[in-house]
């Protein structure tokens, strides 16, 4: 019971982390694009 509860929390935490990572990566690409346009 405790092990399965831990696994659920582990999976939820992993999903949150991967979501944050992908968001930051997308933002990173947008910033790079904007930087090339605005700061030559």
């Amino acid at each position: 019971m405790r092990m399965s509860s831990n696994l659920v929390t582990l999976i939820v935490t992993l999903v949150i982390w991967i979501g944050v990572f992908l968001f930051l990566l997308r933002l990173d690409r947008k910033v790079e694009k904007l930087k090339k346009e605005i700061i030559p």
Partner: protein
Amino acid sequence: MFWKTLLLILMCCVIAAAFLLPPPQSQLGEVSRIFYFHVPVAWVAVLAFLVSFVFSISYLRRRDLIYDIKASAAARLGLLFAILATISGSIFAKSTWGSFWNWDPRETSVFILLLIYGAYFALRSAVDQQDRRAALSGVYAILAFITVPFLVFVVPRVYQSLHPTDSVIDAGFRIQMSTPVLATFLGSLLGFTLLFIWMFELDYQISRISFEKMEE
């Protein structure tokens, strides 16, 4: 890109290790695993406030607005990580002390810290003129950081607190952790520090782009 991929893998390993590798602390049980996230997040908050302090000094010495942009980016992230530390601490408090908020000395000192850095952004938004805003908030950030060691390290140890004080080092400044606990903890510290560096760089670049756009 290489170090970002490494960060992704490192944090996935840390999260998996935190839930599976070390046994739960005998008295606190499974909730003790929050230690692997709560302490590194609190560490990053203090680091961010330190970075803001250093860039504020740099601004006041050189009067270059780039340093002000960097100082505000660091303070913003410090506030974000301090909020995350407060939320993770409240979850721990609920399961060990019975309620999310007890006005324990540690909770009260973090609340005051959040108010101090919240006021930093209120001050920034209240002044329109760029140089004046940068100078005022630079002085404020220096004064604000002076309170950090007292609020984070001194107050909770001077007053009786329910918050664990020897979870990282004991009274004799010795590390009292088994190898799996120490490895997971250090991995988490490294991961959150790298995440802060990445977020700081992003926040700085976004603020700089909007600054350049305003200048045009």
